[in-house]
């Protein structure tokens, strides 16, 4: 029994010991364990695999994938970060820039601004195509001039009072529809995702006047698209699995609950004694505070479940479609190689 348990632990859990982490790599390949059939079986995978959406709103998505291996879950994560296309500013045509921010720095900053536009509605721009067309380009105009505020108090030193338009935000960017874009996209849908990103600061007499072209791109080919994507950080984690090797009672129970993130350990009164119980291991951030406590470190085993992934897609424009998109991209990758 003990041996079987140990083998299962080796296969299923990444154990966090006091001085190191054990069983990190996937070992369940055919031939490694006698008595286990580890060959790939699509039916078995389909039976065991599930996706549970924990939380979804318009900016973020948290879901669990159970029954899939690290290699594939990581591939999804990499694709979401790097290969899902986004619209981002690529070319900046500067008509006038008398601000303290140099042209190229300004252009770089503009390229990092996330644009609220669905990239699936656009085509990639052809190589060497200078003028964009309506199917592959979005145009934005940024025209800001800073002036002195005539109504400011005489002895004020607050720039907000003294100057007008001295901070250039993304809300100053106006969309210039090309061709039939005005019909396709209703007013207000094509804009930067956030309108309070500070682009530059000006003083009276300085002006920024430029035209930006946004094109569709992916991280591999567009250096700014990654940060721009705002699409997303996909964080994939193994969920924690905390086991109490021995029951913990009394004062020790209180100490134990303090060693973990709040909500993980619940101290209950049973028959007059305080008993510790694992309430919600998922909340734990694994600070490993327990290993600093000489008495309690032998009582707890910290591990992570190997084939279960908590995926958080944060700061995304449209998280649910993104998730689907990234899986489709990985599909298409394997298709192209299948010849």
């Amino acid at each position, binding site marked *: 029994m003990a041996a079987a348990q140990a083998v299962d632990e080796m296969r299923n859990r990444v154990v966090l010991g006091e001085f190191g982490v054990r069983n990190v790599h*996937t070992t369940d*390949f*055919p*031939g490694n364990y006698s008595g286990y059939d*580890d*060959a*790939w079986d*699509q039916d078995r*995978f*389909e039976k065991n*695999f*599930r*996706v*549970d*959406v924990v939380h*979804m709103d318009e900016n973020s998505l948290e*879901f669990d*994938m159970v029954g*899939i*291996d690290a*290699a*594939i879950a*990581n*591939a*999804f994560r*990499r*694709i979401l970060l*790097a*290969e899902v296309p986004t619209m981002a500013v690529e070319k900046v045509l500067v008509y006038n820039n008398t601000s303290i921010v140099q042209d190229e720095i300004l252009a770089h900053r503009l390229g990092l601004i996330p644009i609220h536009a669905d990239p699936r509605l656009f085509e990639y721009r052809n190589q060497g195509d200078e003028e964009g067309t309506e199917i592959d380009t979005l145009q934005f105009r940024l025209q800001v001039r800073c002036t002195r505020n005539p109504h400011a108090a005489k002895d004020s030193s607050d720039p907000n009072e003294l100057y007008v338009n001295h901070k250039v935000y993304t809300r100053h960017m106006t969309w210039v529809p090309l061709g039939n874009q005005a019909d396709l996209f209703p007013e207000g849908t094509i804009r930067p995702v956030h309108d309070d990103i500070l682009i530059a600061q000006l003083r009276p007499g300085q002006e920024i006047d430029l035209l930006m072209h946004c094109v569709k791109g992916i991280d*591999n080919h567009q250096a700014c698209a990654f940060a721009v994507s705002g699409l997303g950080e996909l964080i994939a984690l193994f969920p924690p699995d905390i086991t109490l090797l021995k029951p913990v009672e009394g004062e020790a129970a209180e100490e134990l609950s303090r060693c973990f993130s709040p909500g993980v350990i619940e101290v209950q009164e049973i028959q007059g004694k305080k008993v510790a119980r694992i309430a919600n291991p998922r909340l734990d951030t694994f600070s490993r505070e327990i290993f600093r406590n000489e008495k309690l470190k032998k009582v707890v085993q910290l591990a992570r479940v190997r084939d279960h992934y908590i995926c958080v897609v944060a700061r995304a424009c449209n998280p*649910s479609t993104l*998730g*689907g998109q990234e*899986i*489709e991209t*990985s*599909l298409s*990758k*394997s*298709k*192209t*190689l*299948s*010849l």
Partner: protein
Amino acid sequence: MEEDQELERKISGLKTSMAEGERKTALEMVQAAGTDRHCVTFVLHEEDHTLGNSLRYMIMKNPEVEFCGYTTTHPSESKINLRIQTRGALPAVDPFQRGLTELLNVCQHVLDKFEASIKDYKDQKASRNESTF
């Protein structure tokens, strides 16, 4: 004999597509002289760990495969070398192709489950909102 011809056609097919100019993804097979086709190194261009690791995992799950590993040759070059050695005389292209189709099936299944889950969640939320009215 037929297999040989098929393989050669595949390789030559790729070579012509490379000669045609732009190629997005291409695949080469490199084989040491004197070995038969059960140990082969595939060079996959324009690929990185994203496909490499997941494909390696799927191929390793095949009991006929004795060895499977991949490396990125250099971080500046975007290509990977994937080596497959099979037990017995199975040509290495077989587990490679099988790994790709299995990966495809996995992704398809994950996609289906994911979309179903999202739909369920949306439905649940909608019905919860309705019941509060």
